[in-house]
């Protein structure tokens, strides 16, 4: 599945790039070709890493399972004990983790590309906090646990995105204004989450705190299906259009308008898709730190080119799956939430991204 979706942006990509001056055309095509092959190669390696991480987790999750039994279960046989662990715990976790990682990666990469700033990921500019705060409200005050939680989370993310957008829309330099408004809203929402936590019963509070670090522990097939359907619908119906429009927006809004794009609608659609891709996973797993933040810049570094949105989704899925393996195995007597791993191991990468962004002048 990844391989076919990966090919898409590169094949449509060159058609949208306006004609280059004749002198640069020759080197331009070879450059594009080289970049395309780098994207393909990176995607291939990413898939290999993903498969390895999945296999590693299936065999060495919390408890080691005999390899023969794992193969038997995967082959469709029933093995007492092992069947349950694989089918009701490990596979749903992997499925939810991959879907959530892909959604977060695409969400972050869309924001980063659109605002032209690697730091403008939803977890920094407040959209993630919007989804989290709404979900915390739904859990603590309303006691929701099912799809209503996802709906709340999505609504919270969209509401905050709209608010930030409205607050920053006047005048030029919308990018930096948007980020600053997002920082302030994010700080307020964090305070709101803290307040809601102090209002909760002790049991709920500890559940919510666990969820707030980003955890796959509550994964089941229902959650996985919910994510697959919701993310899949957005990914198939809207994402291709958004990717095409993003390329035009990146030429500058005047140029995009000249190409016949309704800039306002294109931006609104892009924000909707980016927020939904990030908010829907948050309702299930909680905010896994840095996945949305890191996926894009990591792909950009590996392909030595601009952030490839779909590759960022694949990278997000791989990051979460690898983190999940480490979360289960790092401490013998303690299963860490996966968000702790992405956060703690993501921190050094963060500094690297900050330095890289600033040295190329895209930090602000």
């Amino acid at each position, binding site marked *: 599945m990844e391989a076919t979706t990966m090919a898409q942006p590169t094949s449509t990509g060159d058609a949208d790039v306006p004609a280059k001056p004749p002198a640069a055309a020759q080197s331009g095509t070879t450059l594009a070709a080289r970049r395309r092959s780098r994207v393909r190669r990176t995607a291939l390696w990413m898939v290999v890493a993903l498969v390895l991480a999945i296999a590693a987790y299936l065999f060495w999750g919390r408890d080691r399972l005999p390899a023969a039994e794992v193969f038997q279960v995967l082959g469709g046989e029933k093995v007492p004990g092992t069947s349950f662990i694989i089918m009701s715990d490990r596979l749903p976790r992997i499925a939810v983790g991959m879907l959530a990682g892909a959604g977060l990666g695409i969400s972050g990469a869309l924001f980063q590309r659109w605002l032209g700033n690697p730091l403008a990921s939803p977890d920094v500019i407040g959209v993630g906090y919007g989804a989290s705060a709404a979900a915390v409200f739904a859990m603590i005050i309303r006691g929701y646990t099912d799809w209503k939680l996802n709906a709340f989370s999505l609504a919270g993310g969209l509401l905050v995105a709209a608010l930030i957008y409205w607050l920053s829309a006047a005048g030029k330099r919308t990018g930096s204004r948007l980020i600053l408004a997002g920082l302030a809203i994010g700080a307020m929402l*964090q305070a709101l989450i803290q*307040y809601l*936590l102090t209002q909760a019963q002790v049991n709920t509070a500890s559940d919510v705190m666990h969820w707030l670090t980003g955890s796959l522990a509550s994964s089941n097939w229902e959650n996985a299906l919910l994510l697959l359907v919701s993310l899949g619908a957005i990914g198939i119906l809207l994402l291709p259009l958004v990717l095409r429009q993003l390329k035009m927006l990146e030429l500058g809004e005047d140029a995009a308008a000249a190409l016949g794009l309704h800039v306002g609608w294109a931006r609104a659609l892009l924000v909707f898709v980016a927020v939904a891709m990030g908010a829907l996973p948050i309702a299930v797993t909680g905010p896994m730190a840095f996945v949305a933040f890191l996926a894009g810049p990591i792909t950009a570094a590996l392909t030595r080119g601009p952030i490839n949105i779909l590759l960022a989704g694949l990278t997000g899925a791989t990051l979460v799956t690898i983190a999940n393996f480490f979360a289960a195995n790092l401490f013998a007597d303690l299963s860490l939430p996966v968000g702790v791993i992405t956060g703690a191991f993501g921190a050094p990468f963060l500094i690297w991204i900050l330095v890289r962004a600033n040295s190329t002048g895209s930090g602000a």
Partner: protein
Amino acid sequence: MTATESVTRQSPGAGPAKTTRKLGTVLLLIALLALALFASLLLGARSVSIGTVIDAIWNFDPSNGDQGVVASRFARTVGAIVVGAALGLAGAGLQGLTRNPLADTGILGLNAGSSMAVVLAIAFLGVSSLGGIMVAAFVGAAGVMALVYLVANVGRDGATPIKLALGGAAMAVGVGAITNAILMISDATMDRFRMWQVGTLSSSGIDTFLGAIPGVAAGALIVLSTARASNAVSMGDDTAIALGFNLNRARLIGSIGVVILAGTATAVAGPIAFVGLMIPHAVRLLVGSDYRWLMPACLIAGPILLLVADTVGRIIAPPSEIQVGVMCAMLGGPIFIIMMRSGMKSVSL
């Protein structure tokens, strides 16, 4: 010397009259502080009469229950004064030396750095004394501040306010994730830490707040000593250097003071954001932008804000109370956005 004096004066000829007005404003602030202090002792979930408060102050009777309530409010009142003064002045120091209108110990991630270091110290080094926690908090704040500035300095245009704010926010996310990781590993630390992390004045006793006074005093003296350098910096780095200021030294000294203030405040009350942003800007409207007036005035205005926020948080949603950290964020967030919207034109971000 003469050069800097003529420079720091707002406009030649308006000296004495302006000074009288500024002095009046400062006296007004002191009166407001006294009022806020009294309100903090008077108001809360249980109502006591004004006479009881006065009695509790002048002839305290331990057997009187109502006076006991006032006494228990006394601790957080002292806390609000110490923490408010520290955070307000820390913001002024940061804004002054870096000409960064968005500087705040919360926005730049210093509070988050302190939190992480404190949790680390409690969980792994077995630190439990106030002194040890304060030292950990300094180290955390200093580490994050150094990292945020070093990283923001990379690149052509140096450490711009927006690069600093973004770097600080990103660093706070990262440091927060590590804090969470430690809390998840150690249940005991989690239990101790949960209330503290919100930013509250109600979970520490008076001894803790009194113990913080030497730290705040030291940090305040250091930051106050950079007031003239901050005045010079406000006219541009080149002018400040031409006037004979050693900016690197002034910034290093000022940073040490800010880190001590922020670390001490976070160690005793948890991370409280936006005080360092709001107070200097509000005070600037009242006494002007001369840092020799502005910085001392922040020492008075910071406590007013924290006292009011804490008192309002106590009575706004009975029977529970809203922590002072939550109140400050709810108040500071909108003000940050208003400043961003109005300030974008005048300040090159």
